[in-house]
């Protein structure tokens, strides 16, 4: 009952109810899986250029693939399938989701709207530990005799069902882990929405919320609406795997007539397409805010940006069919999906222009978070534009399931979302840990990530255009791919540089937690409420709940004398 009086290590750091501690837990979980998923990508790149060759010592191949059926230290075709499956699953659900939604959602929502904690602190804690349990189930699948899931991150039947699918129970572990992760996400979503609706400080109207909070709010709404749908899909998939039902099995091997594998694809993408917006909306919000902070200008068209983000949120639920043009859907339906998908480019372009408007004639400060925020504009621009080719039926039928699609979604998800997350980490690190990250290492991390990333993902699109299928194990087997094998090797080299850059980031991150320069209360001169709390942030955040007088981006206001910013909780005396 009197928690503050007797806090042990367990109640303070492990089973804490404090949103800031839970945010750190999510952040560490996310960074662990980010490195793990990245390592899987390195193994894949090696296997693509050195198919069926011994792994070098620095990729730990002797350790991991000791008992490989194709020879010690060699990645065989089955192991390769597991690599890309787990790379996708981990990066989407265990790296990006915990970092952007788990960590920054938890940390920023109460601080930015000016309240003491989440609406349901216990639910918040349970949400993290459910995610932790999901992680254990996911990692435990590696210990199974036939290895982990290998049906792709989409787990389409029949690959994911026992009838004619991947042998072993890896797929069942995968399904269970994802169901648990989804449950964790739903708890978070309910908590975030309630907190934002009910706990905003006096004067903090919806159109005074920072755009980061807008992004997290819309993400939570999408989570609450669409994660339950995939939960239903995962339940029937899990029953197919363990209970002998055949909801998703058709054809000659089916013993129960009437199953339909396409049903799963529909259910998966009804969730799956909103999922990409679930991931990117917080990143859009972060970028919109950071561009304003580091241009020392109010965000151009703030209200329009928020409204456009809402429009994208609404449209994202109506476009799932564009993932399924090649499944033989009715052309009329296909055209409807194509139309709705192309419609998304309108709100996206509007807030993209707003970003440019924010930068226009601003006093740009190229701090590390700004570098990442600006690079998001480049990678999201490219990713968004190439999305049009995937959305258009005529070009998609050619490009479907090629590296073009892989390049496109890595530009939007891996590049835009991860760079948004990096911008957020560099920006809020002083507030989360009370110390600054090393700027020089940050700049090196930026350039060694940005350049190789473009070299890898742009060339993926080129290869896809040349017809390279996304899940080929050995590209050298095919005559038509011979001319681009050199490109493949070049990409592998670039990918290794990209991987090493993330090691640099990790070193900087952990070094700065312990040895970084002690940060001041508001190192970036930012106007939002989280920078007004004292350091270290006490339990309950604000000594007095602040009253809000301004919008989130009051920079270079001519009525403010002596400095170029004013906090949301300060009155402008004019």
């Amino acid at each position: 009952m009197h928690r503050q009086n007797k806090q042990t290590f367990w109640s303070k750091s492990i089973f804490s109810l404090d949103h800031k501690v839970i945010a750190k837990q999510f952040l560490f979980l996310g960074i662990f899986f980010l490195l793990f998923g990245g390592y899987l990508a390195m193994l894949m790149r090696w296997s693509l250029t050195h198919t069926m060759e011994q792994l070098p010592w620095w990729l730990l191949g002797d350790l991991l693939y000791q008992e490989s059926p194709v020879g010690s230290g060699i990645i065989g075709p089955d192991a390769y399938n597991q690599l890309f499956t787990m790379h996708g699953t981990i990066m989407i659900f265990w790296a990006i989701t915990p970092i952007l939604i788990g960590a920054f959602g938890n940390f920023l929502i109460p601080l930015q709207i000016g309240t003491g904690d989440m609406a349901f602190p216990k639910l918040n804690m349970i949400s993290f530990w459910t995610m932790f349990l999901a992680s254990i189930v996911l990692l435990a699948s590696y210990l199974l005799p036939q290895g982990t899931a290998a049906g792709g991150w989409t787990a389409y039947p029949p690959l994911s069902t026992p009838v004619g699918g991947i042998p072993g129970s890896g797929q069942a572990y995968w399904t269970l882990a994802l169901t648990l992760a989804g449950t964790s996400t739903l708890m978070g979503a309910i908590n975030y929405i309630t907190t934002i609706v009910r706990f905003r400080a006096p004067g903090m109207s919806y159109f005074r919320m920072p755009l980061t909070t807008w992004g997290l709010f819309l993400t939570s709404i999408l989570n609450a609406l669409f994660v339950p749908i995939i939960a239903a899909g995962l339940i029937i998939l899990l029953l197919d795997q363990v209970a002998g039902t055949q909801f998703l099995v058709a054809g000659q091997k089916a013993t129960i007539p009437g199953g339909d594998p396409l049903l799963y694809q529909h259910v998966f993408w009804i969730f799956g397409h909103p999922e990409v917006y679930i991931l990117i909306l917080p990143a859009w919000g972060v970028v919109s805010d950071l561009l304003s902070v580091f241009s020392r200008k109010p965000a151009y068209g703030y209200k329009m940006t928020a409204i456009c983000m809402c429009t994208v949120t609404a449209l994202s639920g109506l476009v799932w069919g564009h993932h399924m043009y090649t499944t033989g859907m009715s052309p009329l339906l296909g055209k409807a999906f194509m139309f709705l998908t192309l419609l998304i480019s309108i709100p996206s372009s509007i807030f993209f222009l707003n970003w440019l408007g924010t930068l226009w004639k601003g006093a740009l400060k190229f701090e590390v978070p700004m570098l990442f925020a600006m690079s998001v504009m480049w990678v999201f621009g490219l990713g968004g534009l190439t999305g049009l080719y995937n959305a258009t039926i005529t070009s998609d039928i050619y490009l479907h399931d090629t590296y073009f699609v892989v390049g496109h979604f890595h530009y939007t998800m891996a590049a835009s979302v991860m760079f948004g997350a990096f911008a957020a980490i560099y920006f809020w690190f002083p507030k989360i840990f009370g110390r600054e990250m090393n700027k020089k290492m940050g700049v090196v991390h930026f350039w060694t990530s940005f350049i190789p990333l473009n070299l890898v993902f742009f060339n993926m699109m080129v290869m896809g255009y040349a017809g390279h299928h996304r899940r080929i194990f050995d590209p050298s087997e095919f005559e038509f791919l011979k001319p681009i094998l050199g490109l493949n090797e070049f990409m592998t080299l670039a990918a290794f540089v990209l991987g090493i850059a993330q090691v640099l980031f990790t070193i900087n991150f952990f070094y700065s937690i312990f040895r970084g320069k002690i940060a001041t209360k508001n190192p970036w001169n930012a106007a939002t409420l989280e920078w007004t709390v004292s350091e270290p942030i006490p339990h309950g955040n604000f000594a007095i709940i602040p009253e809000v007088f301004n919008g989130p981006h009051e920079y270079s206001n001519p009525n403010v004398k002596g400095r170029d910013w004013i906090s949301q909780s300060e009155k402008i005396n004019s």
Partner: protein
Amino acid sequence: MNQQNTISIPTNDPFGKATNGKLGMWLLIIVDGLSFAGLLIAGAALRASSDSWPIAGELLNIPLTAFNTFLLICTSFTMVMALSSIQRGDEKGLKTYLLYTLLGGILFLGIQAWEYYHLIHGGFTISSSMYASTFYVTTCFHGLHVFSGVIYISCILWQAMQGKYSADNWDHVEILGLFWHFVDLVWILVFTIIYLI
């Protein structure tokens, strides 16, 4: 709230009298409703593409389940009575009606288990046909909700025994009621779709 005494809720309450818990429960109901929608629509899609879908009345004991449905609707009624008792400050009425609701929930689960037992012994198992799979998934998913509801009612009943609720403090009873009515409402849909049409 007792565990976070440093937190104060802002004064410009945008949602009137609705408490956090109530808003949270409404969100949960939306979330849960959508997962039921997912299952029911998936079942409908399978049925639409199937050329042999059995007539439910030939396989299932409809009068028994109709009684079960009636029972569940009655527990909704007793739940309303429990809330209205405590709103009048009648603690004894709250405990009595919560107990009736709890017993109704347990009886519902018992009848469902009995139904499953006889169906499985009659050869109607989860993997015997697509209809059977759909039937078991949907009804079992709902049964798990009733089971959670029974545990939930027990917790609130236990708190009521401790004298936690009074004419000024009945919010948690109302939130429990929201969940229980939702479970009832979904059952009416499940009963209609799985058993009747």
